[in-house]
């Protein structure tokens, strides 16, 4: 028996489409992607072939999650020479090779994980949906006003992206009270 074989249990965990929020909840607008993911999880129901994942700042450790799906929709804070709150949509080919190479400030990061997918022979078709942040340095759980105002529009962008891929979604009947404090879980 070969030492490294395919794990028969893997298949169950491979969605076709992955919606991935990334960022740190502790640094104001950097948590935007996670705020959006939490709202999506709480308020919307998706078919099994779609997974919605809070990727935090796991960076390269996300490789296991992102190397499986065919389509990847990333929600994150993106600096793209706009003003705070501007929404960006960066499609697969437009993700510049220079960011797909390691040029972000924190070298062990999500874009590096995406690059590494090439070595695993499955680069998911990726679109990055981003918001221009105002503040990613202040330690705090709240989004800045211009960025907070874009959570709802971003949710609509994600849903539109899913519709483009032929996914139908529904709103959950009873929407729980979603607090602005992402840690208010009881």
């Amino acid at each position, binding site marked *: 028996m070969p030492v490294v074989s395919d794990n028969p*249990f893997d298949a169950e965990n491979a969605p076709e489409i992955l919606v991935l929020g990334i960022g740190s909840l502790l640094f104001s607008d950097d948590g935007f992607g996670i705020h959006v993911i939490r709202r999506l999880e709480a308020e919307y129901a998706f078919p099994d072939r779609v997974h919605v994942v809070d990727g935090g700042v796991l960076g390269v450790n996300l490789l*296991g999650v992102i190397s499986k799906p065919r389509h990847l929709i990333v929600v994150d*804070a993106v*600096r793209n020479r706009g003003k705070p709150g501007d929404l960006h949509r960066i499609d697969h080919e437009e993700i510049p090779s220079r960011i797909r*190479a*390691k040029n972000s400030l924190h070298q062990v990061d999500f874009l590096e994980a995406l690059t590494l997918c090439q070595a695993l022979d499955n680069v998911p078709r990726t679109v990055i949906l981003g918001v221009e942040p105002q503040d990613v340095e202040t330690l705090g759980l709240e989004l800045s006003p211009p960025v907070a105002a874009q959570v709802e529009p971003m949710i609509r962008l994600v849903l539109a992206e899913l519709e483009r891929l032929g996914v139908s979604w529904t709103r959950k009947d009873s929407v729980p009270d979603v607090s602005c404090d992402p840690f208010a879980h009881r």
Partner: protein
Amino acid sequence: MAERIIVDPITRIEGHLRIEVEVSGGKVVNAWSSGQMFRGIEVILQGRDPRDAHHFVQRSCGVCTYVHAIASVRAVDDAVKVKIPKNARLIRNLLLGAQYQHDHIVHFYHLHALDWVDVVSALKADPAKTAALADNVSNAPWGGTTYFKNVQQRLKTFVESGQLGPFANAYWGHPAYKLPPEANLMAAAHYIEALRLQAKAARMHAIFGGKNPHPQSLVVGGVTCAADLTAERIAEFLYITKETHDFVKNVYIPDLLAVASFYKDWGGIGRTTNFLAWGDFPLSEKEPESLFMPRGVIFKRNLEKPVMADPGKVTEHVARSWYEGTQARHPYQGETKPFQGDPKYDTDSKDGRYSWLKAPRYEGEPCEVGPLSHVLVGYAYGQKEWKQPVDHVLKTLNIPAEALFSTLGRTAARGIETLVIGEAMQGWVMELVENIKKGDTQTYEPYEMPDKAQGVGLNDVPRGALGHWIVIENKKIKNYQYVVPSTWNLAPRCAAGKMSPVEEALIGTPIADPKRPLEILRTVHSYDPCIACAVHVIDPDSNEVYKVRAA
């Protein structure tokens, strides 16, 4: 004539670390380590429910989510005086063990190997000779001329497309690279295989960790994954554990030894003096007696006399850090008051401040923490699980135990403990199965939150000794401090002017080319630095953030 080199930031790490060294006569004669970002999560925790602390702390770092969560939960376990059930202890051990397997494989192949392996040189290798070499040194399941030809072609595509990706920004062709092209190609091939494996190993956490990829199953008093204790879930966990262990045994360790045999001089470089391990993996309710990875301190490299470590002897210094005052404090009394003046980076004056990291000391001494400390403490106590593999490595490489206190020893220790823990994990899975078979399915023990209490969670995680200290008043968090492995290792000097482990380790490092200080990266990376800044906004403009200044 002395010359200063600044490497800022150190790449292939989490967080923002700056290293400055002074070079004279081709060797490092002085060194300063500086954490460039303020990590003030302690401030966010004050006034909150202690039961929630772990949800916050696991967000402070992308690499260390589980380890901060477990440290926090243990600190509160200790404060509320709850004894967790056996199943909870086993599952916590298995999750921590899984973290070791995953992190160390990633570190060796993806964060550290490129300091020793020249990928560009691999393009010149003869695939047939590489296949013969691989057959000879490793028991890897893949190989053969065609396989290595394919890998080489893939590397070529990476290099020629200009999209070096993970292979960008390295010092290819540097004279300190010693491997022949064939060994480089073999290692590069295993880099890719290790990627596949790490993607799979990360699944271990999802099995008992609840929500992937942030573990949600930890609670004060135990774990909440009772529903996951089914035969299928446990079998899945065991399957991946075994697969990972096979990789470690048949690929990682042989690669480590093969690469190390070309770099034996690094047994004399990157040396430190004192080693601290809190230990981890309790095998019963009794701590520290039952810890599989034992607790202890080794002073002055004396392997004859390890002593029991006492968390009461820890202080954190701020005299050379950007915090108010100069008073060293125990973590229970710890303060996190950032310096109000301009945090000027000052490595020139005798009492200059130059880092956002505090400087932890044990009985006033700087101590290295991490794999090397784990392995040395186990070795010094003479525990056979630890002693045997160390002796095997020393014998294979034909080096004395004295060579362990080094960059070579640190990197070897990481592989050794991955092997030792992976072996033990399989036994823990079986213990869990037996216990459940006996009808014990308890995973949680209820407790009362006291009005006033304090507790400490001592852990030893892949990067080293991790302590969380909590003070509770009116059932809320009054004070929270954590002393993390990279703070021990990468701190600045303390009030007494003693260097931190990494600063000490860099002294004497040969520098072949000050503009390409590969040798510095080797020692710094050998600590697997992680200084958790967690700000990672995508920034297409920051094209050139990687500076080496020879000034």
